């Protein structure tokens, strides 16, 4: 089986690693700005599929199929994002005779509509967040909208049926802001997903985001895994994930996992997928949506269960039966936590910070896994999600995992651009985070309360050390004459000479 990876960045690298371990050749695809990307280096073959904007490359089904044809690939792994949850792509692969490493087009379609998925969950006997069962028709009157909101109750969320990542979503506290919120959400959803349909969901006050990873094979077996908690979100985007959750007891785990399994069975689900729930303060949980793909945060599950989800995706696609002990999948071993390292400047409101990466020294050592997607010399482009790596720490307890994560974050160096590492260093010492007192609103609240304070806090000695280092660097450049003063660094060749200079 030769696998074309219809993706880029760390997930493409992750999948190439799995393929290599299984002895399978790989085909990468790349856009203009990704010619020098790591996934292109690492794959056995690589095909250019167009200009940098995703709509002209990574989202072009025709070019991806052409690339598979030109390289003799017989399977496609979509990763996450881009076309991973696009039923038309899964169908086009199937029609072109390619194995799509993911669920069936039907399952993607069924679970892709948020209201459709809610209906499936309800029929499977799984509670959903109270809300409207059907999206509003474009012609719905203001009266119909207000009445529906009254039935659901306030506070509520207006959500796009085709939504994701917080797009087309608006919180409504009181009836007077309702109609305006619906209008905004519709217009945002229209431009983001080409679909203006929206619906209402009751907004829980302090919900935690709990999700169940599962695997389904082509022989009807579905295995649910220990939960992940992903409540640490910035503007509805997950930034830290962990497993297990402090808020889930073994008994509750069993119930949530069984609920997830029922929904997946009802959807006829195969491959890796995740069912997201909201967990209320009183311990009740509600189906939120299903992600019909591998998720960014899959490594935390791998680390507490020792099961390789990408290997299994491929084995399932090859027709293999799941041979995972269901009890083991639900019994977490230790604790794992993941930080998504983005090329963003946390001191500028998490503004993307693309640019040339001059050096990378990834954290390593005991209990540390780094799933990276970049190399020194690569320029982080402006066209895509800015995640450049995922850092995962495992330890016997949550406390030890946080301490290990902090150790690793201090080690991690990405030179030339700014990343979210300093933000995570701060978070690892935030009392409410450390004690597990958080819900999905926690991070936005605590960030707002900081009023833009810098994360680059320095002690007085550190500040002095930085001034000294910069002074010595400037002194060297001035005395060596080897580089003009506007160029801060010489070559590897020259650095030997510089060492001598500093010694002298």
């Amino acid at each position: 089986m030769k696998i074309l990876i219809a993706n880029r960045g760390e997930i493409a690298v992750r999948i190439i690693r799995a393929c290599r371990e299984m002895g399978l050749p790989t085909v990468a695809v790349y856009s203009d700005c990704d010619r020098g990307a790591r996934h292109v280096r690492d794959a056995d073959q690589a095909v250019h599929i167009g200009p940098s904007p995703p709509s002209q490359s990574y989202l072009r089904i025709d070019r991806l199929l052409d690339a598979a044809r030109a390289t003799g690939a017989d399977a496609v792994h979509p990763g996450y994002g881009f076309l991973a949850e696009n039923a038309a792509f899964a169908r086009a692969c199937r029609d072109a005779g390619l194995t799509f490493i993911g669920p069936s087009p039907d399952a993607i379609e069924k679970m892709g509509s948020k209201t459709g998925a809610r209906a499936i969950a309800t029929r499977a006997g799984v509670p959903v967040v109270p809300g409207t069962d059907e999206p509003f028709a474009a012609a719905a009157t203001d009266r119909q909208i207000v009445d529906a909101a009254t039935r659901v109750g306030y506070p509520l969320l207006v959500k796009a049926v085709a939504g994701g990542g917080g797009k087309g979503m608006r919180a409504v506290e009181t009836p007077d802001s309702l109609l305006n919120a619906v209008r905004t959400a519709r217009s945002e959803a229209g431009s983001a997903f080409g679909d203006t349909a929206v619906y209402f969901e009751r907004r829980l006050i302090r919900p935690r985001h709990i999700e169940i990873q599962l695997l389904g094979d082509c022989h009807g077996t579905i295995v649910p895994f220990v939960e992940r908690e992903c409540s640490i979100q910035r503007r509805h985007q997950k930034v830290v994930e962990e497993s297990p959750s402090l808020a889930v007891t073994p008994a509750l785990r069993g119930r949530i996992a069984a609920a997830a399994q029922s929904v997946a069975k009802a959807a006829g689900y195969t491959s890796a997928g995740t069912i997201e729930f909201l967990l209320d303060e009183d311990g009740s949980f509600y189906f939120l949506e299903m992600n019909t793909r591998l998720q960014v945060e899959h490594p935390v599950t791998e680390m507490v269960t020792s099961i390789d989800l990408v290997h299994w995706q491929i084995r399932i696609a090859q027709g293999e039966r799941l041979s995972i002990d269901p009890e083991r999948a639900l019994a977490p071993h230790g604790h794992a936590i993941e930080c998504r390292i983005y090329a963003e400047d946390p001191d500028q409101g998490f503004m993307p910070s693309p640019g040339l990466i001059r050096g990378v020294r990834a954290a390593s050592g005991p209990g540390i896994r780094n799933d990276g997607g970049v190399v020194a010399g690569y320029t982080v482009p402006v066209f895509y999600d800015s995640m450049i790596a995922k850092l995962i720490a495992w330890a016997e307890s949550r406390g030890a995992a946080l301490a290990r994560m902090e150790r690793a974050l201090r080690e991690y160096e990405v030179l030339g651009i700014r990343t979210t590492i300093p933000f995570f260093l701060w978070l690892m010492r935030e009392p409410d985070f450390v004690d597990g007192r958080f819900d999905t609103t926690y991070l936005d609240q605590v960030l707002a309360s900081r009023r833009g304070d810098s994360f680059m806090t320095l002690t007085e000695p550190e500040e002095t050390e930085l001034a000294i280092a910069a002074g010595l660097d400037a002194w060297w450049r001035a005395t060596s004459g080897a580089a003009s003063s506007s160029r801060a660094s010489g070559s590897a060749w020259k650095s030997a000479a510089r060492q001598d200079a500093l010694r002298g």
Partner: protein
Amino acid sequence: MTFEIEVNGRTRRVSVERAGTEPGQFLVGVDGTTKVVDARRVGEFGISLLFPGDAHAGTAIDLAPGSAPGEVLAHLAGRTIRIVVNGRRAARRGADTSGTAHGEQKVTAPMPGRVVRVLVAQGEGVAARQPVVVVEAMKMENELRSPKAGRVKDVAVEAGTSVEAGRVLIVIE
């Protein structure tokens, strides 16, 4: 040799000279306080500092060039710190600083994107770091902030406009 070095917004005077003939030994003064520093380059970006006088305390700092003349991005124990060496001199040499000289500062698009919302109007007073415009880029909405307290002199874009990197969006005076 003396340099003016801005670390995290604070400017220090740093003097550097060799300490005797011992290799890698320097006398470095920071705002008049001088220490013996044992310094060593490691690789292209690394510098290892030891302070024999401070119970042998040590630190490792990596310095990579930034985007502006004299700007350095330093890496210290997980944090990325902006350092500017002889910034005033560099600014004096620079060409594109006329606005700065008049106390005017521009909020520019840091990357290609689409203006989602303009949060201020011409003539409005703004605080330092107050969000003034929202630009969508790299799949995220990004708030751009005012670089200083002042008044909005000009709003050069409207919501919905696609902008290139470097395009002036708002001018603060």
